[in-house]
């Protein structure tokens, strides 16, 4: 139970760093080119969703364990 919690926590740290990086970069990109905001947002959400997918695999493993 405790180990599963630690595992889920580690997965969350990784996903948090990844999504944070994407969000930060998207902000930079929008600040540079506000007219491309729509396209950047779509790409940002796709990338965030893919990272989240990996994190969720880890969470499911933690749930099963």
């Amino acid at each position, binding site marked *: 139970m405790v180990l599963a919690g630690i595992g889920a926590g580690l997965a969350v740290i990784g996903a948090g760093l990844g999504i944070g990086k994407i969000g930060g970069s998207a902000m930079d990109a929008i600040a540079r080119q506000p007219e491309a905001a729509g396209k950047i947002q779509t790409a940002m*959400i796709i990338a965030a969703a893919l990272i989240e997918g990996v994190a969720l*695999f880890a969470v*499911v493993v933690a749930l099963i364990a």
Partner: protein
Amino acid sequence: MVISNKPLQFLFAAIVACIPFVGFANPAVDSTHVTTEAVAEHHGEAAHEEKEFNATELINSHIGDAHEFHIADWGGHPISFYLPVILWTNNGLEIFSSEKFHHDNEGHHVVDVNGQELVRYKEVIFYKDKFETLTEEERKNGAFAFDARPLDFSITKNVFSMLMSTIILFLLFLAVARSYKKNPKAPKGIAGFLEPLVTFVRDEIARPNIGEKKYGKYMPYLLTIFFFIWINNLIGLIPFFPFSSNLTGNIYFTFVMAFITFLVTTFSGNKDYWGHIFNTPGVPFWLAPIMVPVEIIGMLTKPFALMIRLFANITAGHIIILSLVSLIFIFDTVAVSPISGAFVLFMSVLEMLVAALQAYVFTLLSALFIGQAVAEHDHH
């Protein structure tokens, strides 16, 4: 038809019409029943005083599926909306009300259906004689003990909610279609609310990801999953009957949704899509024994991630809200309730955003996968 002109009124009328089905538990059916129940009740009360509040149990029962729709407890008696239990047993089809289980989920109350004795343990129905031979571990994983239980096709809480959302969507879009027929100019009313969403799915999801030429064929599917997931996410956030079921946080439901996306992607895959899987361009042929399995696993992980994403996001949201409510009962004081209530409000508003976002992400990724399958590559 008068009914479908006023979908909301019709829905309300339907809900009111269902009220007679809401029975109180422990109806005095016959005298023998009453006596056994009175004894059981006495034991139950004695146990109740010692019983501590168990947040895990409460949360699990709220996010899980159930044979009856539990509404409230009144004076120690549960008030429920009893849904039909439909079983395929060894003797064929059996249909009866979930009221017969008397809210028992511990495998104690035996239900006799045409000579077959059934018990229910944690929302899984077993044959009584086979249930007694199972170990504790096997009982917990009861859903997979296929030889010890009949096939369960019951209209459970989630199925009920799914049927209801289908009817809501059907009436909603029927009303929209009718308003376009009557009024071919600028949309009014409900059509004016839904048209921007439909054009959003078309212009922001389907067109850029599938391509200008082919997107039209996939629009019905994308719109269906978008609105279906969205409305079910929202229904799960409404905390009272007949809503509140955790349908999109049910792994079987999300599995089916992801599986349909997988089927659509696989069957619309063109020559290039299959070529990239079985004969990846630019890769030497002797690498095929490694590349082909990897590509096939890649085909399967994409819908798998779709399934887990929706399931985990919605379930996590429900667990957080229920945990915040449980805090009041864990600390056992009213003083916590304003803080907990404020957090629940905040989380609920956040969950409304997540509800729309997850419907969007599911549709967007489905469109992306379909787009990959139908894309035509230039070979040099």
